[in-house]
């Protein structure tokens, strides 16, 4: 925004250089530096612009200038090349924006730069920061500005004071939108700005669109204070932008921020001598009280509702209090508060509304009425404290179930204040002596040794052990059997074994081992074989033993066809019965 503001005035500046506050240093060779302010008198909170012009070259300028009381920051730069009679010159323009929050005269010190072999410096520049009060708020020389109006400049602490912040922008219907304004002060509470009223008026023969935001504030601290400047922001139609021939439908908007004037106020403290029932309310109020029931037992709660309506500050107000402290008769709890701002009919700047306080009170004795409550507020118009009082509310209090004969206590009249209840401390045991002996007839028992190892414990262990080892033993036996079967391999029949006898050319040892195995199987299958057959079988068996175990025969070589033809037919004949 500041850049746009700056550029707006840049053209005028370039066309009309060397304003009233210009200062410069120019050398014969065309090098030089100068500093100017668009306006050397700037209101508090407003943004001013400094222009530093460098001729014949450029140099790096600081990002900020250190001037106590002013904030000065570099905001942009621009270059221009001039060719005059064939001679080419460069001109650099640097822009700074500045603002101040305290009125006074400030001096911007020389800015030094090096150009070529020489050092150039600007001359000191005087800037004035001034307070712009409500009378000076309207400035028709500016394209837009803000105004801060306060209805009173002298008021009391906690008193609600209406205010209005207004944005002015040159042109008709220029304001498209309003940004939330900012008005802060540590000693004031400012209500939020919810309403916007747009309008327009001629100011110094120029028409300005305006947007007003009413609200109110109240002070927390007495004394002299300066309020503002507030910061306002609006979005305005950008008349310089292209709308592609479609008028305002496609028109662009730009944001304009502006600072308002300040207002010096005097906040008066509330007068001394406030009654005890003063709870912080400032304004003008009415009080209505209602009880949730008028028939209770001792100890039962009653919900009291206090409606405080009127015009003034409800935020700082607390609940009404008993006119006379009812010590020992009524017990009360802290009240809750509900603000009903919807009751306001005067817009956001109005202080009309109501607050509802809910409080639980409990009768601790038989009474006939709920005693009066008081609420004292300060009326700034009359400049005095006003006390409101609720009427006594008749009730019927019956004895509670735990107290058959409750004490009837007369409500103290005449405003005698009872002493406040003190918190009772819980009694602690003194332990001064041991208790007396018991004289009741004892229940006699006889002693015995503790039986730690009952027999049935070990019996159970025995049974479980037997079961466990049975399962374990069965498993082990089964495992051994399976292991043996695996090692021995499957059991063959004699016929099956014949098929496994190697053929001619196989190792002789292998051949005769298979033959011997077959003969063993045959013998096992034929225990009652006739003697002649046994003789033949024994002869083959002897031959197998000779080859396998005697060592006299070469058992490593291949078996011959002769051996095979001699043994196998006999073995095959043995299959016949």
């Amino acid at each position: 925004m500041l850049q746009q503001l700056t550029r707006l005035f840049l053209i005028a500046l370039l066309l009309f250089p060397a304003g009233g506050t210009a200062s410069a240093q120019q050398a014969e060779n065309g090098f030089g530096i100068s500093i100017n302010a668009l306006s050397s008198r700037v209101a508090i909170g407003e943004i001013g612009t400094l222009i530093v012009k460098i001729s014949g070259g450029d140099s790096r300028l600081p990002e900020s200038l250190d001037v106590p009381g002013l904030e000065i920051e570099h905001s942009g730069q621009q270059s221009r090349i001039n060719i005059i009679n064939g001679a080419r010159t460069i001109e650099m323009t640097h822009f700074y924006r500045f603002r101040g929050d305290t009125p006074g005269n400030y001096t911007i010190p020389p800015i030094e730069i090096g150009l070529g072999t020489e050092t150039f410096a600007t001359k000191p520049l005087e800037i004035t920061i001034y307070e712009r009060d409500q009378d000076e708020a309207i400035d028709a020389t500016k394209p837009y500005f803000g105004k801060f109006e306060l209805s009173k400049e002298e008021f009391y602490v906690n008193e609600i004071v209406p205010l209005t912040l207004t944005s002015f922008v040159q042109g008709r219907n220029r304001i498209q939108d309003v940004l939330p304004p900012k008005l802060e002060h540590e000693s004031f509470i400012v209500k939020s700005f919810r309403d916007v009223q747009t309008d327009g008026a001629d100011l110094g023969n120029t028409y300005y669109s305006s947007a007003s935001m009413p609200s109110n504030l109240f002070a927390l601290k007495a004394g002299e204070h300066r309020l503002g400047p507030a910061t306002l922001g609006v979005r305005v139609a950008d008349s310089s932008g292209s709308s592609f021939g479609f008028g305002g439908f496609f028109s662009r908007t730009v944001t304009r921020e502006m600072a308002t004037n300040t207002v010096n106020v005097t906040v008066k403290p509330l007068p001394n001598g406030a009654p005890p029932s003063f709870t912080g309310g400032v304004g003008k109020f009415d009080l209505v009280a209602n009880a949730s029931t008028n028939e209770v037992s001792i100890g039962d709660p009653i919900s009291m509702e206090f409606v405080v309506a009127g015009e003034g500050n409800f935020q700082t107000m607390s609940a009404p209090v008993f006119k006379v402290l009812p010590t020992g008769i009524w017990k009360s709890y802290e009240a809750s508060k509900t603000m009903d701002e919807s009751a306001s009919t005067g817009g956001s700047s109005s202080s009309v509304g109501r607050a509802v306080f809910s409080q639980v009170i409990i009768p601790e004795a038989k009474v006939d009425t709920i005693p009066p409550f008081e609420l004292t507020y300060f009326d700034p118009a009359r400049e005095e404290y006003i006390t409101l009082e609720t009427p006594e509310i008749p009730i019927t209090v019956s004895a509670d179930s735990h107290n058959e004969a409750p004490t009837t206590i007369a409500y103290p009249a005449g405003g005698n204040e009872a002493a406040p209840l003190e918190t009772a401390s819980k009694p602690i045991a003194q332990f001064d002596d041991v208790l007396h002996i018991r004289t009741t007839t004892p229940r006699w028992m006889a002693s015995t040794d503790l039986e730690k190892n009952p027999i049935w414990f070990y019996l159970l262990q025995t049974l479980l052990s037997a079961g466990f080892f049975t399962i374990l033993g069965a498993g082990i036996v089964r495992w051994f059997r399976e292991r043996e079967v695996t090692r021995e391999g499957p059991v063959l029949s004699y016929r099956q074994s014949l098929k496994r006898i190697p053929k001619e050319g196989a190792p002789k040892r292998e051949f005769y081992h298979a033959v011997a195995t077959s003969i063993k199987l045959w013998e096992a299958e034929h225990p009652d074989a006739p003697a002649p057959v046994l003789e033949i079988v024994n002869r083959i068996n002897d031959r197998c033993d000779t080859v396998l175990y005697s060592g006299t025969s070469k058992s490593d070589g291949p078996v011959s066809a002769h051996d095979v033809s001699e043994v196998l037919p006999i073995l095959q004949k043995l299959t016949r019965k």
Partner: protein
Amino acid sequence: MKTPFSIAQILVTLAVSAASLTIGAEDSNELFTSANTAFESGDYGKAARNYERLVEDGLISSTLYYNLGTTAFRLEKPGEAVLWYRRAGLIESGAPEVTQNLEYLRTKLGFLEFAETDLDRFLRTLPPETGRWIGSVLLWGGAFALAATFCIPRLRKQRTAFLTLGIILVVSGYAALRLNQYTGEQLAPENFATVTSANTKALTAPAPGAKTVIDLPPGSEVRIIQASGPWRYVDIPGELRGWVRAEEITPVWPVPPQKS
């Protein structure tokens, strides 16, 4: 009041043996009443003797122990008073008179007591030998599960599940047995004793000239670790250990002397 014993253990024992009273109830009541009368008349010595006769007869009663405690206090034997109150609390857990009188003596004597953890409190609520039974059952269950896993071919398909179950049961059983061991070593009433003598000191060695570990006010609680002649090596509240004379402390349970 701290109760460093298995209440359930004591009660079960007493319930089992309740039928074996050695003297008639009428005689016991008569003796008890006469002890009470002596107490009321201020003859605390006679009251104590009559109460002790009932104890010697093997009778057990929280009321008897409580009255003995109060009588001992009147006889200016605060250590014995604490001892008898503790025995009464053993029989009648949480008896208000016992608790209150112990609290009174605690404030007056400043005796030392073992801190009680939540685990201790829980273990004391269990019946005696609970840990042994639970641990045994769990261990056997685990053993059966593991054996079945490898020995019963039909269970081979569920081998992983049975193996896991077996391991869990074995570990749980081991933990239960360890708790049982802890209960037996740390919480068994037979291991605890009460300091009944005044000016008792725990010493660094079982010798009269040894250095002092800590003074033990009457009523202080110790846990007996080892007996060595006339000396007892004890655990002292505050994670201390030391030697004390056997005659300066009295075991809380069983109640001596007993009639043979």
